[in-house]
């Protein structure tokens, strides 16, 4: 409020605060409508905030590891989150091996943090991710000296992170190819892209996941059938790719013909033209829509629970089933929600950063 006023040299702090208060009062009660709204929201806050605070903090059990403390308390049971954090984060992964998914999570988060720096956008970054994922699948699955853990025992945050990063990481380039294919002058290529995109967009993600998990085993022999985790990954990737393709195609349509002509006149071949001239501009145009699609996909990964993979939400439900504890569902889902929020919000900030950087549009 007061901060928006220009600071003049004569303005004493007191004078300044006075003007600030006057402004605030005018803002809140300036018109009858404003005054009514102010009173309404004030009343709403008075009614809701104290009980919320009581539940969240004052009457809550914060650290007491005894489940009975939670039974007695009227507030939130945060000690459950604390006591069950391992199970919430890593699901049914074998207890003694939890250090492995823990390293995997840290590794993925560290790499994500590293990858947002423009300075690290080199071809080496891609190699780094590929190497990291070889390491990640070894750590999660075992073999070569580590105890084997089948994907059916994977769970929690690492599953969410792996599904998100791999599905989107592969779907993005596939989406670009699909978008280009859909604009191709070769009829076969164009029709193929249209059929794929439209059939994927026409189906709910749930049904695609069911096809991957239930129907594929019916017509593929056991030996050829990929692991359920891989099938879910492929389903998520195809789904994301179809949506990303349409967003990117929108960007491609915004590029004037003159850009293609200038690139052609310089002798740039097709793929160079796309990579160096067209796509950088097309993608910048659609950053907000891309970010939107990707954020939806981050949260869509939790749908894999319907085919029996244990992502964060399934781990939460499993933890709640422990009869020793009362089942503090609200607290658990707030915790899981906070993790999803942190992931999605960080990505939104990153997209915002991408949108701002770079040369001013013409």
């Amino acid at each position, binding site marked *: 409020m007061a901060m928006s006023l220009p600071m003049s040299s004569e303005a004493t702090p007191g004078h300044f605060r006075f003007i600030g208060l006057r402004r605030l009062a005018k803002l809140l009660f300036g018109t009858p409508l404003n005054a009514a709204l102010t009173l309404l929201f004030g009343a709403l806050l008075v009614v809701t905030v104290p009980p919320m605070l009581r539940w969240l903090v004052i009457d809550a059990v914060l650290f007491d590891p005894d489940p009975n403390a939670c039974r007695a308390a009227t507030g939130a049971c945060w000690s459950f989150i604390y006591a069950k954090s391992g199970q919430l984060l890593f699901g049914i992964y074998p207890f003694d091996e939890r250090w492995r998914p823990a390293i995997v999570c840290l590794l993925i988060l560290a790499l994500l943090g590293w990858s947002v720096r423009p300075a690290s956008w080199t071809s080496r970054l891609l190699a780094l991710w590929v190497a990291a994922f070889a390491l990640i699948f070894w750590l999660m699955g075992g073999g070569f000296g580590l105890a084997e853990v089948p994907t059916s025992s994977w769970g929690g945050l690492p599953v969410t992170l792996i599904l998100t990063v791999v599905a989107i990481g592969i779907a993005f380039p596939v989406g670009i190819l699909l978008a280009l294919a859909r604009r191709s002058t070769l009829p076969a290529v164009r029709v193929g892209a249209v059929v794929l995109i439209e059939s994927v967009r026409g189906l709910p993600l749930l049904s695609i996941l069911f096809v991957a998990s239930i129907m594929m085993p019916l017509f593929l022999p056991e030996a050829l059938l990929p692991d359920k985790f891989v099938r879910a990954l492929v389903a998520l990737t195809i789904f994301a790719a179809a949506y990303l393709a349409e967003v990117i195609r929108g960007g491609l349509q915004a590029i004037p013909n003159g*850009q293609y002509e200038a690139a052609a*006149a*310089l*002798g740039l071949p097709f793929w*160079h033209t796309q990579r160096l001239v067209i796509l950088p*501009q097309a993608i910048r145009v659609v950053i907000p829509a891309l970010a939107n699609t990707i954020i939806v996909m981050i949260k869509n990964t939790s749908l894999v629970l319907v085919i029996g993979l244990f992502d964060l939400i399934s781990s939460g439900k499993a933890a709640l089933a422990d009869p020793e504890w009362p089942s503090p569902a609200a607290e658990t889902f707030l915790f899981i929600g906070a993790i999803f929020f942190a992931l999605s919000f960080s990505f939104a900030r990153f997209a915002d950063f991408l949108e701002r950087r770079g040369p001013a549009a*013409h």
Partner: protein
Amino acid sequence: MLTSVSAIRHVPSLPMTNDPTAVEMVGVNKWYGTFHVLKNIDLTIQRGEKLVICGPSGSGKSTMIRCINRLEEHQQGRIVVDGIELTGDLKKINEIRRDVGMVFQHFNLFPHLTVLENLTLAPIWVRKMRRKEAEQVAMHYLDRVKIPDQAHKCPGQLSGGQQQRVAIARSLCMSPKIMLFDEPTSALDPEMVKEVLDTMVSLAEEGMTMLCVSHEMGFARQVADRVVFMDQGEIVEINTPAEFFSSPHHERSKLFLAQILH
């Protein structure tokens, strides 16, 4: 169709090749659907020659010069550029495009790249030049078009005249043998036309082979060896600039000149 053909100026043969012909078009025809846009175009351009092409709007001037670097495909006839015949062969097309620069009416700079990056893009990716070297070449040509201080700006931050000079420099960085200009000054404010024309004049003085679609009579008089007048998809008259502007041979030329001169 040709009512007048001027004497072809003697061009010193260039050391790289003995063939004095830069571009040869023989019986070129093109249709857009049923619309006959180019009709029996015959035109031979010698190395070092400067041609100015003019004619009413829609007469096919752009289409004709865009056929030379295959931005448009012709359906009949032969086009040979720098000894290579234009066919559907993509490799040959790109080979020709590397050696034929083109400057557009609306500049068509790459807005997401800096001026310097606009200039180095094709040398690095098409000519496989090292970045350092490409930047040196780019700075040399920016110097020549008199805007070395704008190298690190984005195209959107430059005036129209500056953008067009960047576009010319971008073409020159590929060391083209032939330059095509499609109304390079007609999208510019009047006060910026001169700076672009000056650049083109100096390029002409250095012996570049140039085809310019332009209605700038002063420029045509100063540098053109021949003026090509087109109307309704045909080459109606080819003449020296002096004769074309003072006593054109063809009725349609007279009509056109009367319109642009008044």
